[in-house]
């Protein structure tokens, strides 16, 4: 059947049903956030965002607040506002992640987020995980979804296990972690000179889908891409965060509200830092079953818009649908 098209442009309200979240790490060493340009990639496929954005799925309870304040300059005997001044610029954003993962949990917690490295036999108990079993060296030829290992190093791994892949801690100071600045190390003594410390905080984690004679096939790509020389791999059993900690993670974020008439509202926060500790909320499915969500709340930090030099904390874009009068 052929269908001809007739377009009567109309003025339509924006109707949307949900919000999708994408995050990208801020390069803390270079102080470079990820910048989303809606003029270039505003219409990206929601299922495959452009690099370096990581899809964290549909979120709920998305709430934006402006904390900017505007004051007035008054003059006259009966004081009358003559001018306005922008006294402060700020914004917060809060949301709930529907699913738990390394990234959503870490974003919601906001401080160092640790991997529970499979503990070595007899190691002393510790709240954020005990001393781990020995890490094994990643061999050349590894890629983001496949880790080549020596045949003798495979015994600690099985299909379905989870792994952390990163370099040894060898006395580095400053931001550590491949792909994402996962923590800030002030000195070797602060982390007990633990060779596993970077793998303990690293975001370079994945689930193993298959163990072959050559190594590990991963069910998801490593966030830092192909492993580099010097990286090692350790099995992990899960994740842990803490109420407390001195480190602030920093992320860039894009939130997309797809409208029902193909319009799109996009909120881009180049720099977000968590402004609350770890917190959950629940929705009752059928008592006593409850779905547990991760609450996250962020404060937006400024960047300079190179178009005019203004300091801003958020960009809101609107890409109208094809039938909407603008």
């Amino acid at each position, binding site marked *: *059947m*052929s*269908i*001809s*098209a*007739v*377009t*009567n*442009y*109309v*003025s*339509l*309200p924006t*109707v949307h*049903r949900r919000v999708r979240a994408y995050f990208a790490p801020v390069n803390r060493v270079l102080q470079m956030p990820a910048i989303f340009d809606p003029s270039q990639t505003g219409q990206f496929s929601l299922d495959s965002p452009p690099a370096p954005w990581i899809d964290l799925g549909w979120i709920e309870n998305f709430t934006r607040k402006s904390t900017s304040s505007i004051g007035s300059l008054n003059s006259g005997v009966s004081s009358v506002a003559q001018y306005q001044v922008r006294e402060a610029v700020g914004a917060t954003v809060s949301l709930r992640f529907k699913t738990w993962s390394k990234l959503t949990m870490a974003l919601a917690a906001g401080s160092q987020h640790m991997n529970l490295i499979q503990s070595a036999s007899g190691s002393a108990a510790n709240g954020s995980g005990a001393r781990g079993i020995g890490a094994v060296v990643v061999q050349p030829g590894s890629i983001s979804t496949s880790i080549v290992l020596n045949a003798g190093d495979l015994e600690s791994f099985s299909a379905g296990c989870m792994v952390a892949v990163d370099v040894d801690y060898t006395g580095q100071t400053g931001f550590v972690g491949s792909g994402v600045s996962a923590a800030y190390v002030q000195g070797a003594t602060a982390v007990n000179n633990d060779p596993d410390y970077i793998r303990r905080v690293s975001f370079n984690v994945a689930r193993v889908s298959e163990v072959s004679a050559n190594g590990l096939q991963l069910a998801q790509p490593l966030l830092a891409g192909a492993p580099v020389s010097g990286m090692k791999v350790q099995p992990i059993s899960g994740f842990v965060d803490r109420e407390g900690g001195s480190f602030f993670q920093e992320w860039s974020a894009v939130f997309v509200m797809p409208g*029902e*008439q*193909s319009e799109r509202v996009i909120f881009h926060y180049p720099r977000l830092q968590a402004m609350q500790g770890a917190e959950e909320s629940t929705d009752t499915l059928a008592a006593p079953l409850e779905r547990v969500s991760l609450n996250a709340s962020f404060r937006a930090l400024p960047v300079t818009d190179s178009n005019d030099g203004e300091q801003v904390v958020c960009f809101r874009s609107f890409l109208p649908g*094809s*039938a909407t009068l603008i």
Partner: protein
Amino acid sequence: MENAKDTFYVTLRNRLAVLNPNRVMMLRGLQRPGILMEEAEVVVPQMPTDAFVLRWTGLDVDGQLPSALAQMTCEMHYTTGGTQPNAGLDRGRALEEMDAELFSILSPSCAQKINYTQTPAVAMATKVFWGIPQFSSASSQRERLTRIAKIAVFAFQEQGEL
């Protein structure tokens, strides 16, 4: 509203034909995908089995917007007695299969509104969109299991539409 109702029906019919080509029915002497719009067919004493029957019920219109927004309620009735080779003992599975098919063909939850009263059909400016289905409890009558799913269907009224 008629264009929105037609669009909703044709969209689901086409999706069903792709999803499960075996779900067919004989209607007015023709084999068609197993879905029909009740108000556009002759009145029958009993709903067909193993097919989806659309029944339009509620209507609300928000006339305060630049373009009036209509919200219509579509009830999707479906009933099954299972299959003869299994003596109907698979009627629970058959109903579950229809549940899954309905959930599947409702996604994505929008479609370009099309005026099918013209030949060729004319694509209109806006989209019809709908919410998630609200499934009722399954009811049992003799050998048949029946369920009703309610779906809120929305459409902006365009120039020249009723």
